[in-house]
C-alpha cells in the first residue's frame, strides 16, 4: 500500500474525556485507502522535548466527510501538545502505516476486545465488519463508566458489552471476566489495549482455540520499517511492529501464555 506524507487540515478538535483528545483531519483530495488497525505517524510541532513523531492508531475514517479521526490519549509532552491543536491548523502525518487487522469471512463470529485507548482502532474495524455483513460484538473495558468513549458509535456497528473495574457500567471486573466468554463461542477475536489485558485475552483464545489477533504498541522511531527499533520477538525472529504489525496473530508471538 502506498504511504503518504501530507499536511492534513484539522477540521474539528474535541475532548471526549479529560485524558483524551479527538482530532478530525481532512484533505482536499479524497483520503487514500486505509485499513482497520493501521496507524499514522504524527509530527509534533512546538514541543520543546518531543523530537520524534508519535504513532497514533486510526480511530475512524468518515468517508462521507473525507475525515480521518485520531483519538489521542494525552500522556506526555508530545500528546499534550497535540491536544492544543485548533480547527484550521495543519497536522503533518505519515500514513497509512502497518498491516491492519485480518478481515475474516463474512460468517465469522468476531469479538473485538478493547481497553483504554486501545478501543480506538476497533471502531473503524467494527464499521468495516458491519459493512461486510458480520455482526461484531464489542467487549470494552475501562476503569469507570466515565472512561468509556464513543459507545453510541460502537453500537451502530454491533452489540456492545462493557466491563468496568468499579462496576459503574456493565459487568464489574476485567474484560476477561465477562460472562459472554462463557456463554458464547467466537471464531475470531481482535484485541487492542494494555499488554496485560491482551495477554489474558490471548490466553483465553489459545485455551479455546480461537483465531486471535492483537495490536501492539511498541515504541517506534521511523514507523516504516527502516530503523528496526520497535521489534517484537516472533516465531520468525525479531520483526518490526510498524511494518509487519502492529497487528499480529498471537500464534506468531512468543508471549508466555
Amino acid at each position, binding site marked *: 500500500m502506498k504511504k503518504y506524507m501530507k499536511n492534513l487540515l484539522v477540521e474539528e478538535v474535541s475532548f471526549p474525556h479529560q485524558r483524551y483528545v479527538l482530532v478530525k483531519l481532512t484533505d482536499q483530495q479524497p483520503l487514500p485507502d486505509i485499513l482497520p488497525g493501521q496507524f499514522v505517524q504524527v509530527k509534533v510541532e512546538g514541543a520543546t522535548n518531543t*523530537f520524534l513523531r508519535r504513532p497514533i492508531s486510526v480511530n475512524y475514517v468518515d468517508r462521507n466527510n473525507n475525515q480521518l479521526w485520531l483519538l489521542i490519549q494525552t500522556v506526555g509532552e508530545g500528546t499534550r501538545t497535540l491536544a492544543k491543536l485548533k480547527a484550521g491548523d495543519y497536522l503533518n502525518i505519515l500514513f497509512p502505516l502497518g498491516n491492519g487487522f485480518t478481515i475474516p469471512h463474512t460468517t465469522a463470529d468476531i469479538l473485538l476486545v478493547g481497553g483504554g485507548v486501545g478501543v480506538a482502532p476497533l471502531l473503524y474495524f467494527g464499521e468495516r465488519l458491519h459493512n461486510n455483513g458480520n455482526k461484531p460484538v464489542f467487549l470494552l473495558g475501562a476503569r469507570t463508566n466515565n472512561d468509556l468513549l464513543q459507545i453510541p458509535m460502537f453500537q451502530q456497528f454491533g452489540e456492545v458489552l462493557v466491563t468496568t473495574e468499579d462496576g459503574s457500567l456493565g459487568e464489574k471486573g476485567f474484560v476477561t471476566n465477562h460472562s459472554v466468554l462463557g456463554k458464547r463461542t467466537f471464531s475470531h477475536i481482535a484485541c487492542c489495549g494494555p499488554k496485560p489485558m491482551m495477554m489474558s485475552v490471548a490466553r483465553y483464545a489459545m485455551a479455546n482455540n480461537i483465531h486471535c489477533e492483537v495490536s501492539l504498541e511498541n515504541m517506534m522511531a521511523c514507523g516504516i520499517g527502516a530503523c528496526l527499533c520497535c521489534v517484537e520477538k516472533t516465531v520468525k525472529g*525479531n520483526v518490526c511492529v510498524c511494518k509487519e504489525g502492529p497487528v499480529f496473530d498471537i500464534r506468531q508471538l512468543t508471549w508466555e501464555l
Partner: protein
Amino acid sequence: MSTLNINIGDLQLKNPVMTASGTFGYGLEYADFVNLADIGAIIVKGTTLHHREGNDYPRMAETPSGMLNCVGLQNKGVDYFCNNIYPQIKDIDTNVIVNVSGSTPEDYAECAARIDQLDKIPAIELNISCPNVKDGGMAFGVTRKGAAQVVKAVRAKYHKTLIVKLSPNVTDITDIAKAVEDEGADSVSLINTLMGMAIDIERRKPLLSIKTGGLSGPAVKPVAVRMVWQVARAVRIPVIGLGGIMNANDAIEFFMAGASAIQIGTANFIDPTVTVKVRDGINQWLDSHNVSSLTEIIGAVD
C-alpha cells in the same frame, strides 16, 4: 544552478547527500516518499558475515533533541543480502553502498570480499564503531591498532571505494583517522553515535535492553562538526560528515568544517523526504551566495 557533484575516491556522487546506515533501511522503505535516484548515495543497513538477531526490545529512547538506539546490527547476513536484497536494489539509479560490520578482521574482510563481487555496489562503509554489540567492532574503532588491523584486512580483499566510519567515543579521533588512512581507506565518515544511557526512574531500569546505546540527532551536532573539522585537517582523504543534520544549513556547516559529503540519519525518521529537501536547500544556498561549485565552500573554516 551550482555544481553539486563530488567524488569520494572513485565514487562519483551526483550530489553530496547520503543516507546514514541503519536509518534508511535498504532505501526501498522510503521509495513512496522520495525519488531514490535524487539521493547522492544510499548507504544501506549494517551487514555482517552471518545472520544477527540484534538486541532485545526496547531498542530506542527519545532524548532532548536526539535519540538513543541499540538495534545491534540485526540483519540476515551477507549471503542473504547478495541473493535476496541486492536484486531488489541494484537498479536504483544512484550509488548504493553497503555498511559492513563484523567481530574479527577476518569476517569483516570476508563480508567485504563477497560484496566486492556485486557489480552495482561501488563502495562499502566499514563500521568499526558500533557501540551496540559486544563484538560490533567498537573495540576496533577506539584504538589506532585495532582500526588499522581491520582496515588492512579488508583492504586486501576489497578493491572498490572503502569508507571507514569512525567512533566519536575516543580521546583523539584524528589519531584513528590517520591510522585508517595509512592502511588505504579512501574516505572516513564521522561521527557514529555517542555512547549514552537513559533511565526509567519509575522502573529503576535503563530504557534500553542492553542498558547503553548510541546517541544521535541534533544534540550531537556540535560534537560532530568539531570532529569533522579536526579530522579534515589531519588527513588527505575526503571526509564524510554526519551527526544531527536536519536541514541544508546544517549540511553547509559540515561542508565548511571540511566535509566533502554528508549523511542524513535520524532526520529521516522525522521527515522521510528530508534528503531531497537538503539537496535542494544546498543548491539554493549556493546559488543565493553565488557559489558555483560545492567544492568552493568545503573546508571554508580553517
